[in-house]
């Protein structure tokens, strides 16, 4: 059975791609989702534009619910949301044609080889049969399942099933890739492979990624922006790239022989200081360099035993967000 090709549809998609960097990936405006009497997401408002966005939060924070709502699986009880500029209430079909989704749970079609499975999924996304077959092979090569691509999915290990899910999510060439807990159940080496692959896909700069995880390292290793959810609310938004740059001004010094005079001299440079025992934490003022600190220390006969750029890790950010 051959399907008729509709050339206009691809042009339509291309226009979206061209517009993608300008439009936010996700735009939430007072979004709330309620299941019966339980409110799962409450009044979420934010706009995310990064190339790789992390959705963080403890279990039950509402990460998967947010993703499922963006994909149109759940109806919002109030508020609105846009994915790549399309409204989730009225343009679900369009959103789904732009998105590749890798669900959290085991999801496969049994008694089907990986290549048939990925081909069928690509065809359902609108690719003509021959193109879908070609891209299924490519996607399986890309995720590292080339050798096992003719095997039935039911015989795959958990790690291989995760890779097959990733292959079906990228086979049709989406503009946005949504990964829900992609490293779930993977051993450390498989996790490393998965993270490397996500980074490669991100660095190809042909699509944007939303990675939903409760594993901080996964998000830290792959994402540029982080939205932290807690109990269905936005707990914190952070641009990791900017945080990393900003954190270069944070210093932690371990000194010997320091006294109030040393701290006072540093504060006179415009730096903010906090002293605990023989440790000194400071934020360097603009124009002040590390060599100035060494100079002051030498003048006052203070020995600097250790100097660290103390940047907030994602864990610090996350814990602060949870605390607030």
């Amino acid at each position, binding site marked *: *059975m051959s*399907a*008729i*090709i*509709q*050339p206009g*549809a*691809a042009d339509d*998609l*291309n226009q979206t*791609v061209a517009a993608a960097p300008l439009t936010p990936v996700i735009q939430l405006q007072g979004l709330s989702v309620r*299941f*019966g*009497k*339980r409110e799962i997401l409450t009044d979420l408002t934010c706009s995310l534009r990064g190339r790789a966005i992390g959705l963080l939060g403890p279990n039950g924070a509402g990460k998967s619910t947010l993703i*499922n709502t963006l*994909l149109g*699986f*759940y109806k919002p009880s109030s508020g609105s949301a846009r994915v790549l500029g399309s409204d989730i209430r009225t343009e679900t*079909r*369009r959103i*789904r*044609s732009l*998105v590749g*989704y890798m*669900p959290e*749970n*085991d*999801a*496969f*079609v*049994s*008694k*089907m080889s990986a290549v*048939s499975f990925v081909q*069928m*999924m690509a*065809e*359902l*996304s*609108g*690719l*003509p049969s021959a*193109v879908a*077959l*070609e*891209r299924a*092979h*490519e996607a399986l*090569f*890309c995720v590292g399942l080339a050798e096992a691509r003719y095997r039935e999915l039911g015989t795959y290990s958990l790690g291989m099933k995760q890779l097959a*899910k990733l292959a*079906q999510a990228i086979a*049709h*060439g989406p503009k946005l890739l949504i990964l829900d807990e992609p490293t779930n159940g993977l051993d450390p080496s498989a996790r490393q492979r998965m993270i490397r692959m996500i980074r*490669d*896909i991100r660095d*190809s700069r*042909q*699509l944007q990624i939303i990675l939903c995880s409760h594993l901080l390292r996964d998000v830290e290793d792959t994402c540029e922006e982080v939205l932290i959810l807690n109990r269905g609310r936005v707990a914190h938004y952070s641009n990791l790239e900017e945080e990393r740059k900003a954190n270069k001004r944070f210093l932690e010094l371990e000194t010997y022989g320091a006294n109030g005079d040393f701290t006072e001299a540093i504060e006179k440079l415009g730096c903010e200081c906090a002293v605990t025992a023989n440790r000194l934490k400071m934020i360097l003022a603009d124009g002040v360099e590390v060599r100035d600190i060494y100079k002051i220390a030498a003048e006052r006969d203070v020995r600097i035993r250790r100097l660290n750029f103390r940047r907030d890790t994602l864990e610090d950010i996350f814990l602060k967000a949870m605390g607030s």
Partner: protein
Amino acid sequence: MAVYRRTYTSYSGPLTPAWSRSLVLFRYSRRKLFQSKLQTALFVLCFFYPLACLLIIYLAHNLSFLERFGNIGGSFHIDNRFFLLFVEVQGVLAFVLTAFTGPGLISPDLANGALPLYLCRPFSRAEYILGKASVLWIVLSQITWIPGLVLFTVQASLAGPGWAWDHLWIAGSMVLSSLIWIAMLSLLAMALSAWVKWRIVAGALLLAVLFFGAGFAQAINAVLRTQSGSFLNIVYLMGTVWTSLFRVENSGSISPSEAWLALLIYCAICVMLLVRKVRAFEVVK
């Protein structure tokens, strides 16, 4: 085929029209169906009776040949009862085929959590159900009303245009009877398999609904001295509708309109079950 590519590449080529997506599902499901030798054998078996009927029609119009074997030509009457019997026999075969093939269409997807993968694409739940059900519709049509129409055409060509014109309603009855049965069977099979998510159990449940349903209906009729138990007997209800469509006298306790209504209610229940169960994610309220 550029299988040497190891990096992700976007796609900006042409896309198939949205209406053709459920045909993709039909194509893959049909291929999977005929991968089983048992199901292929069953499908082939379903054509034996239509072939026998074809032979009977031929013999009925060649009495001189039959006279060689004595006076048995009188026992071949090609009328509404002949076509009703054809629909009944093929209906039973359609049921057997559905019991084997129907539950395997949806339950593996539900059991393996594949629905989010289908439904995260520009592909609705209705299209998913339509794509899966269309396999049953086509396969069951191939063994019920399509050979029925072939038989009718052969009979019409042998009996002449006068007979064809007078008995045209038989063709309509045959198509309608088969379509109702196909709709009922496919909805039942899919709803049950969506409900239990286990292929074998869904097949057993389908058998139980039709056979135990009939037994239960009889028991209610006997114990409560009523005829309303027959409403639980789908086969009986279908028989009532068929006999009315083929203008054959029916001494049953339920009127054809009541049987129609009961069947419609059963179909609505099945649709409700499907709508409730065929979701990307179940909402726990």
